[in-house]
């Protein structure tokens, strides 16, 4: 050891083994990621991907089972038309659910405001435009009432809207006398109420204005949620209200605006529903609130708040519509349609839970 000439020592003794040490920069472990984990990761970053995939698969599946009757431009546009009202409600519901709330009163607000518009325009002789404005303002008021109870009286959203559901429903029965307003009366007195029922042909498809309204509502809300400070605040509140509060977001004011906006969207759905249904019936859409929650959940928006894209609810509503139409055209009994939708909900939430565990 001593006869071989040593190169000049490169510093102190303990530094001499520096060369043997690991030279890699600190990094996350990248290997041993299975395919499943990678899928999980992708889905976590794009929660809307699940409903899109389900929609595409179910379209193909029903196209194969039910054939040309299902997979025609006309039938597909019909499905779009059939889901338009519940779709708009689902957009309002998504806003609330993203804040980690829930709104059981959406359908009651919608039908109540359609009755308000109808009573004013058909029976009281108020010009249609003003009747509609009153209805839309009423929607904002009803939504803000929910918001006020939740933010100022500090009631949980579930309880608040369970209560206001009954309140709005009773008002609706009182205002309508449990009577429907006939389509022909609307045609002669206030045809503008049926504006969103108008349609035009595009190739083999028939597009109604209510379907266009639905898509428009989703795009506007998507923009507001993703491209404005207000929208980011909404997500922040849904994710962690305390933290949002501490970081200077005026959480109560934002929440109030969310409920007011949701009420407005519900009233808009009420206007559109007059065109879709043709008459105004207090018995319509009794299960609309649950249908809207179904669409939101199938659309991959987390019921725990703060996660999911509002576009998911659009796809969720479409999936339900595709299932209903596809099963119907395959000649399946109604109760199996109900059965299938039930499974869709369970599977959707199960997938959501699995995606949430991505970091593990």
């Amino acid at each position, binding site marked *: 050891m001593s006869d071989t000439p040593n190169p000049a020592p490169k510093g102190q003794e303990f530094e001499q083994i520096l060369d043997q040490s690991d030279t890699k920069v600190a990094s996350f472990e990248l290997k041993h990621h299975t395919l499943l984990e990678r899928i999980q990761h992708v889905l976590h970053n794009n929660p809307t991907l699940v409903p899109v995939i389900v929609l595409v698969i179910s379209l193909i599946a029903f196209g194969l089972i039910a054939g040309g*009757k*299902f997979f025609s431009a006309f*039938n597909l546009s*019909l499905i779009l038309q*059939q889901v338009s*009202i519940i779709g708009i409600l689902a957009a309002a519901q998504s806003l609330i659910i993203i804040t980690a709330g829930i709104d059981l009163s959406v359908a009651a607000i919608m039908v109540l405001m359609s009755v308000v518009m109808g009573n004013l325009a058909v029976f009281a002789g108020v010009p249609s435009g003003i009747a509609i404005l009153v209805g839309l303002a009423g929607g904002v008021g009803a939504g803000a009432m929910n918001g006020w109870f939740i933010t100022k009286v500090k009631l949980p959203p579930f309880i608040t809207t369970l*209560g206001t559901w*009954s309140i709005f429903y*009773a008002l609706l*029965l009182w205002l309508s*006398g*449990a*009577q*429907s307003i*006939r*389509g*022909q009366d609307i045609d002669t007195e206030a045809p503008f109420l049926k504006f969103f*029922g108008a*349609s035009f042909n595009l190739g083999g498809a*028939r597009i*109604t204005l209510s379907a266009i309204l639905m898509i428009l509502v989703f795009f506007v809300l998507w923009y507001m949620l993703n491209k404005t400070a207000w929208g980011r605040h909404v997500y922040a509140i849904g994710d962690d209200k305390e933290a949002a509060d501490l970081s200077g977001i005026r959480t109560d004011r934002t929440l109030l605006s969310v409920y007011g906006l949701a009420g407005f969207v519900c009233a808009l759905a009420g206007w559109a*529903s007059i065109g*879709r*249904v*043709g*008459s105004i*019936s*207090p*018995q*319509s*859409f*009794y299960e609309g609130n649950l249908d809207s929650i179904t669409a939101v959940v199938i659309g991959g928006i987390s019921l725990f708040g703060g996660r999911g894209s509002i576009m998911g609810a659009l796809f969720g509503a479409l999936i339900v519509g595709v299932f*209903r*139409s596809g099963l*119907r*055209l395959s*000649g399946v*009994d*109604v*109760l199996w349609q*109900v059965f299938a939708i039930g499974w869709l909900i369970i599977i959707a939430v199960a997938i959501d839970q699995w995606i949430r565990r991505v970091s593990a």
Partner: protein
Amino acid sequence: MKTLMTTSALAIAMTAGAAYAETSACLITKTDTNPFFVKMKEGASEAAAAKGIELSTFAGKYDGDVETQVAAVETCIASGAKGILITPTDSRALVPVITQAREAGALVIALDTQFEPADAADATFATDNFKAGVLIGQWAKAKMGDDAANAKIALLDLNASEISVDYQRDNGFLQGFGIDIKDPKDIGDEDDPRIVGNDVTDGSPDGGRTAMENLLQIDPDINLVYTINEPAAAGAYEALKSFGKEEGVLIVSVDGGCPGVKDIAGGVIGATSMQFPLLMASKGIDAIKAFAETGEKPQNSEGLDFFNTGVELITDEPVDGIPSITSAEGLKKCWG
């Protein structure tokens, strides 16, 4: 649930106060939304006021709300009601609780919907729903004439539970039209090729529209539409209109609500079978009055296991051999 409990509590307070002096009675309807039951309540309240009977009214929150109806019957038993008029929201589920009511000495009369078994109640005052269906079926057959052999029929029913009103009207219509209905308690077991399909509407216009659209997708040449009630018929008409097919398609229905009768005049519905909720309620009150005074119970109509309160065909295009009245006459008798 909270609102229901407060209304029941209120009703206890009201009936308890009156129990000493007068005969008290209860009216329990399926819902407060359907104008049919709203009218029934009106009829019962008027008759009760005229006969000096103290009447408490209850209603389920939605069709099929068994819990609320059970609670209402229990309230009536507790208040010592002499008679209970009820439209059972579930023909079987309410049998135990009304048996208790009868054991407690109350006269129980089913209105509009029968119990299963029918003799679970002391009497039933109802529309013969099968007959109501037969009338519109016969009318449609006569109206179509030779084309009836090539009819393409859409059947718009109530919901997946297939309750008695639902299968009686549906099968009555088919039998009246001359179709082999097989099991008269089953919907959709027929194999006649003229039937395009069944779908459910929840008895509402939005349900009627969607159901009609779905069936038109199966066969766009449907030319005869049976509907469970007139709101569903109005929805079906909207669907036909959006397909550009409102001409040449016959829509028939059952109920006799005023908007429905106006739809006959407006050419939306071809014919409807009218029923009489006011009569059911007022006869029910009469029976309770008689029972309280003499202990006598009402009798069934001959050959039926219920008292038939009658049904009339309303149409502006009468056909030979089937008695009917016009929409103008119908408008004087309609309910709601």
